[in-house]
């Protein structure tokens, strides 16, 4: 049993998986930080262009849905998901098709669950992110940017990029993942990038409160007093999502 160790990135993961498959040995892959001492392991080098190559390989042999399934599952960060993805790919190679419907096989079910979980979180945040208009001044001049922050359980930041870039094509915005300390930055057009987040950049620049107050009031007005139902509210919108909302549920 041998472990291929990778750097925590998706490219690193795919590189480690590739090396494992090439070696034809019994084994698995593991993040650098998770490897225990004295366990025999090999550090996998990142193979250039591996994401594209691997994706092409998967979609050519097993259908176009598979690369996305694996990418989403990986970003879910569920414990043991690497193992499940490897099992899932091995099964695909064995039966020569995408086994995603075989939910009675453990590794497939875990991949499917991870996929669903991150998809659900992504969808929730498409609605629950709240932007604030912030002014900033820098060498290049003054400007304004719409800023949102959140602490998602899965690493879904990059999955939100296309949705918001398409919706707010001509609006500069930034979404910060405060748990992982990185942010998505969009200036104009469909282009976006992910960068390390510096919490100090907007220091003390929050300006407007008018629309936040309007929204808070509107939110309270929408509840029908005869139907108040906190249980239903928190089952639809669990409390872990409340921290960064503008409105005040409950």
């Amino acid at each position, binding site marked *: 049993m041998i472990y291929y160790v990778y750097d925590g990135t998706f490219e690193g993961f795919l590189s480690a998986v590739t090396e494992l498959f090439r070696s034809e040995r019994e084994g698995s892959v593991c993040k650098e930080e998770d490897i225990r001492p004295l366990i025999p392991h090999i550090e996998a080098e990142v193979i250039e262009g591996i994401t594209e190559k691997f994706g092409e390989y998967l979609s050519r042999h097993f259908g176009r849905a598979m690369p996305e399934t694996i990418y989403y599952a990986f970003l879910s960060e569920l414990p043991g998901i690497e193992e499940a993805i490897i099992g899932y790919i091995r099964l695909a190679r064995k039966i020569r098709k995408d086994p995603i*419907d*075989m*939910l*009675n096989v453990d590794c497939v*079910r875990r991949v499917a669950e991870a996929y669903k979980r991150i998809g*659900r979180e992504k*969808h*929730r945040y*498409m*609605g*629950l*992110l*709240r*932007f*604030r*208009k912030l002014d900033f001044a820098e060498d290049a001049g003054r400007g304004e940017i*719409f800023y*949102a922050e959140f602490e998602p359980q899965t690493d879904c930041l990059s999955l939100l990029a296309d*949705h918001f870039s*398409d*919706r*707010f*094509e*001509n*609006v500069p915005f930034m979404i910060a993942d405060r748990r992982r300390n990185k942010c998505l930055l969009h200036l104009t057009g469909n282009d976006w990038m992910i960068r390390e987040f510096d919490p100090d950049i907007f220091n003390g620049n929050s300006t407007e409160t008018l*629309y936040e*107050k*309007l*929204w808070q*009031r*509107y*939110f*309270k*007005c*929408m*509840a*029908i007093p*005869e*139907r*108040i*139902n*906190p*249980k*239903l*509210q928190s*089952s*639809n*919108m669990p409390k872990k999502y409340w921290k960064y*909302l*503008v*409105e005040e*549920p*409950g």
Partner: protein
Amino acid sequence: MDLMQKLSILGEAARYDVSCSSSGSVRGKHAALGKGPSIGNAAPSGICHSWSDDGRCISLLKVLMTNHCEYNCSYCINRKDNDNPKAAFTPEELAALTMEFYKRNYIEGLFLSSGVVKSPDHTMSLLIETLTLLRRKYCFNGYIHVKTIPGASPEAVIAIGYLADRVSANIEFCTDESLKLLAPGKELRTALSPMALIRDRREESGNLMMHPIRSPRFVPGGQSTQVIVGATGERDYHILSMSERLYKNYSLKRVYYSAYIPVNSHPNLPAITSTPPILREHRLYQADFLLRFYRFTAQELLDNDNRDLDFEVDPKCDWALRNFEQFPVEVNKADYDTLLRVPGIGTLSAKRIVAARRLSRLGFEDLRKIGVILKRAVYFILCDGKFHAPYDLEPDMLRSVLADKQGKKMASPLQMRIEDLDLLRV
């Protein structure tokens, strides 16, 4: 009056409209009507942005243009004789507010309705002006739902249909008798004729879409309507038959059911102290899903001898218990439609069963693994010829075993947006 006050009054006045859907419309960049760079899009799945303290989803900025009204419908909070505070937005005010909320991701778009001021067409012209500002001046390409004003001219309905994603005309009551009692001046016809108009124009513009790429889109998100439940003597059978007719003949996307909340005192209405029939509303939504996704007919669920939905068990369970001779069914053999009729098996589970059994025969444990909820289904299925229920009961006994616990499962399917998506996905 400042914007804060207007927003409170006109939001509160609109909250009894239950529709919150923002789904079913796709607005690509080419759909933008403005000349400048557009902002916004519509997600076909719909997106909920919050859930208010009553647990209902908030997706759109749902407001009235004004709550002044010429009508005096006795069930309505905004009727003429009510002396609650009145307010009105100007089209510019409302369009600007919508944009500011949208840019902060509070909302998916606008749901605009109104009391009737001066005349139906005058009111429509205010709505049209607001939408025109949004679409052309602000280049807004997000979701807009408009409720047409009863009695509006066909020209006004058509004009607004080219600006909105969804248009609805509320039926409110299923019979002319009820309308006469509570909404003098309205007839079923006033709601049904704009529906027919929109249906026909949608079909036409659908055909047109085949040719010119940039042809304007007419009500791309389809139509919906709302029925008030529990204000008058209508039975569930009347309501469901009406819904079925609307889905079939008018191609409606959704019929919404609104448990009547007493807001006015009137001899023809339930007492102001009565509680809204929320469980009945819930059962109607369940039955509505059976019509739309489970290939049931209203006649199968209810008939003249059996005119109201059961409170104890859900409508599918009730149907299965009344047709007990059709069960149990073998999960490895039954076709998709038959699986859909098993209590506890939804569209998602049925699809998973059909997909998984191609690869291997399914035993009871396999069903559990692929995520089929077996609590109710277990009494109605065989797995590889075996019956796995803890007891083999007659329908009457089984009914009490399967009964919902009081107060449990009161969530209305209207709010189950994410589950809704799952239904449509696989």
